[in-house]
Every structure is written in C-alpha cells, then in structure tokens.
C-alpha cells in the first residue's frame, strides 16, 4: 500500500476522486528511464545524421533541441500525461483538480525544469518537492500539476461460491471493512500469518479452525451466500 497522502477532489458530478501524489524516488526512476530512451533515440536516429556532412549535423542539432525540451511535453500532452518512463513506473501527470494535462500545462512544467535543475541534479526541485505538501516541484507549482500514481486499473475478483456463515456478534461498519480487507488481501499473506490474524478474532479456537471460520464469515459479509 502507498503511504496515505491522498488528495480528495469533489467533481462537478458530486463524486469524490482520490489521487495519490508520487514522491521523488519513483519520479527520479521514471526520469532515468526517459533519459535512457532519449539517449537511445539520440544514438540511433540523430547521431547518424552527422554522417551526412554539415547539413546533417544541422538536423542533428535541431533533434537534440527537440529531445531536450519537447520530449516530455510531447508525451505528456498527447499520451495521457505519461512519458514512457512514467508509464513504466505507473505515474501520470494531471492538473491538481484531476483534469487531464494539455499542451500549455505540460510546456510550463517542462520549461521551468531548468529552474528545478538549479544548481545541479534537480536539487532545487527536490527540496521544493519535500516542502510542498503535494510533492510538487517548482514547475508543477507554476503549472498547477501533480504527478500521481496511476497504476494499471485493478481487475475485479470474481465472486466466490463456497459456504458462508453469519458472524456471531453484531457487525459494526468498521468490522465489515476489516473483514472485507482481510478477504481482499488474504492471497498476499502466508497461511501462518492468516492464522495469526484469525486467532485475534477467535482466541478460543485453535488457529486452523479459527481461520476456517473467519473465512466463512468474511464470505458472508462479501455477500457470496
């Protein structure tokens, strides 16, 4: 789970969107990937241009310029706010009200990258990101954008069809949440850890039996019955 610094936004439809801003580390990794991709493009496409004499090196310099300043703008504006590196890391750039990023917003945040770079290695951007409550660097602040975690959409798990039993205590909403979270995450936990958790619910039963019972109750709450 991500650290809960989520931002909640109420849309005009009256629904509540939840965004989780990404910190410096995944963003630096995404930047690294993009840096490599740019390097490869430069080697494969741009550098051979210089073989075509002086005119070719003119084309090379224009490509170098475009890669340096417009590579992120191009991808962010036309590919759902994601450069290839951001896509790999499951990140996306959006406006801070959750709206998609256009060309203008992307250009502002990428032009001001030069200020975030100051004096070297994105030191200014890093410090500003640590101070900012929503992990924005200077360019993000000026363009009113956020880099958020936007992982590939989760799939819905199919309904289970084994037996269930109602809980033997009056169920509060919080209990309901705990039970649902337990059944959501059981797959990622070891059998022993599941038994340990089940023993908290049924301290009188032996761990294995407690786990069986807890599973049945969770299924009841999930509504499989």
């Amino acid at each position: 789970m991500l650290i809960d610094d989520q931002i909640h936004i109420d849309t005009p439809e009256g629904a509540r969107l939840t965004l989780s801003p990404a910190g410096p580390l995944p963003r630096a990794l995404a930047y690294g990937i993009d840096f490599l991709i740019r390097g490869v493009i430069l080697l494969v496409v741009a550098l051979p241009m210089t073989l075509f004499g002086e005119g070719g090196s003119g084309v090379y310099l224009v490509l170098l310029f475009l890669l340096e300043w417009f590579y992120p703008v191009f991808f962010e504006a036309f590919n759902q706010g994601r450069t290839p590196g951001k896509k790999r890391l499951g990140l996306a750039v959006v406006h801070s009200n959750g709206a998609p990023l256009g060309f203008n917003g992307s250009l502002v945040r990428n032009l001001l990258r030069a200020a975030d770079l100051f004096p070297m290695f994105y030191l200014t951007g890093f410090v500003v990101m640590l101070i900012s409550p929503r992990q924005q660097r200077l360019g993000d602040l000026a363009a009113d954008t956020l880099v958020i975690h936007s992982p590939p959409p989760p799939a819905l798990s199919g309904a289970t069809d084994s037996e269930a039993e109602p809980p033997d205590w009056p169920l509060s909403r919080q209990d309901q949440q705990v039970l649902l979270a337990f059944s959501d995450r059981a797959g990622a936990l070891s059998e022993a850890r599941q038994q340990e958790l089940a023993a908290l619910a049924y301290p009188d039963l032996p761990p294995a039996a407690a786990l069986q019972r807890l599973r049945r109750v969770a299924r009841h709450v999930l509504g499989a019955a």
Partner: protein
Amino acid sequence: MKQSQFEQRYRPQWQRLEAALQGLEGSRRRRRQAPLAAFAADYQSLCHQLALARERGYSLALQEYLNALMLRAHRQLYRQRAPLLPAMATFLGSGFPRAVRHLWRWHLISTLAFLLSALLVWGMILHDPELVHTVVDGDGLANLEEMYHPDLRDGAERDRATDLRMFGYYIYNNVGIAFRTFASGLLLGVGALLAMLFNGSFFGAAAGHLSLVGAAQPFFTFVIAHGAPELIAIMLAGGAGLRLGWAVLSPGSWSRVEALRRAAAETLPVMYGVLVLLILAAFIEAFWSPRELAPAVKYSVGALCWLALALYLSLAGRNRHGPE
C-alpha cells in the same frame, strides 16, 4: 444490497465503460471507433455507484476499482482538444503582442539591463581597449575576429550545408538560452537579470572590440537583420523571467503559489512567441545574414525587420475585441 449482488448488477455497465475508455485512450483510429453512445450516462451512474460503495462500506478492492475507473473516465470527459491552426492564427494575430504589452514593464527592465550593460562595456572598451579581456577570453576574441574581420575571413561564400548546420546550431543554442533565462527568473529574478547583464556585456564587448579592430561594418551588416527577432526574443524571455521572480518575491494579495500560477499563465504566451521569434531569427541568421551584399541593402533590410517587429508588437491585436 450485498456487495456481490451489487457487482453482478453493475458489472456489464463498468465493462462497457472500460471498453469505451480503451478506445478513447488509444490511437486516433481507435478513438474514432470507440463505443461512446452510453459513455456519459455510464460515467454519471459510475459516480453514483462509487459513492454508494463508499457509503455502504464495500470492500476496498471494489472501491479502488471504481475510483480508478472514474479517474480515467473523468480524464477523458474533461480533455480539451482545441483545433490547432485557428488557435495559432489568433495567437500570432493578437494573443502574443497583447501578452507582451501586458508585461511591458518587465520587458522594459530587462531591455534596460541589456542595453545599459552593453553601452557601459562598449564605452569602457573604447576608452581602454585592453578592458575587453575582462569580458571575453582569448579564444572568444579569436573566434569573433575570425568571423568578422575582413583580413582574417576566408572570402568564399558559405554553402547550403553550412547554412543548415548553423540553423540547427542557432535553434539548439539560442532557444535553449532563452528558455533557461526564463526559467532562471523563477529564482527570485536573479537568474534572468544576470543573464541579461551578461548577454548585454558580451554584445557590448563584441561591438566595441570589432569596431576598434576595423571590423565594424562586417559585424553590423551580419547581425542587424536577425538581431531584431533574436535580441527582442531574449529580452522578452528575460522580462517574462523577471515577472516570475517578482511573483515569488512580492505575491501581493495572493499566496505565493497562486501568484506564481498567475504569472506562469501570463508569461506562457510570451514564451510561445519567443520560440516563434527565435525560429524566425535562426532562419534569417542562417540563410540571409551570411550573404555578401552591399551594406546599404543589408542595413535597409535590417532596419525594416526592426520596424516591422516594433510595429507588430506595439500595434497588432489592439481593439479587435474592445480595449485591453
């Protein structure tokens, strides 16, 4: 309603929405084929269902699924796709000169910083030619003399390939300088101001030194035409940068972040214009400036460039949609 019943009932709707989203997020061709008939209705009921799922305490996995789906749909619904060409025509016809005039104080400051430092250094060098070494180092001087001095230049006309290489170089170098000048203004305006002072001193040093060694005419006939868009663009970038820095230094009644956002919105059109001006300048500098023509022709074309740009920036876009 139990969670599994809820999922069973609405799953077909969610899947329909997912199919539409996959089309919308794809290439242009897939976008056109996306099944959109029920998109708005599905999105609205999805908002409702997400609220219900949270209220009834359904599982976190379901809530996350619905939230992710809604985020994607929201992004597609509110995406702006304005047609590009008409927008560019309006921008060049009125948006850019208006944005420049709106920030005229800042451009004035950056122009003054440039001119004063240029004149100061120029005067200093006329007074004592040795002072040029405080601004330009030996290699730089050798380069300058090689480029402009009548005795040192090779007389041959440049060929097309060299023109093209220089074009690429001017784009890469000058636009990079302008963008960096703008961004460095964000550091409390200091960066932009220093950039203007430095560029001004260098220009003054080059002009002063070359006129002392008898290369004034080749220098000025070379720079006068492209100097119009190029120097103006650099000064505009400096002015826009100063505006950013001032927003942080003195935000007025806004919070600093809000002031910065407003300044960015005000200066962005200027920077688009700077990019256009510098591409224009690179064209002139690469393909017109190196041509060997009578000084009178070069000076008149250059003067025309300055006049046209000055008229454009001061008059274009006035009164079309009422007073500014």
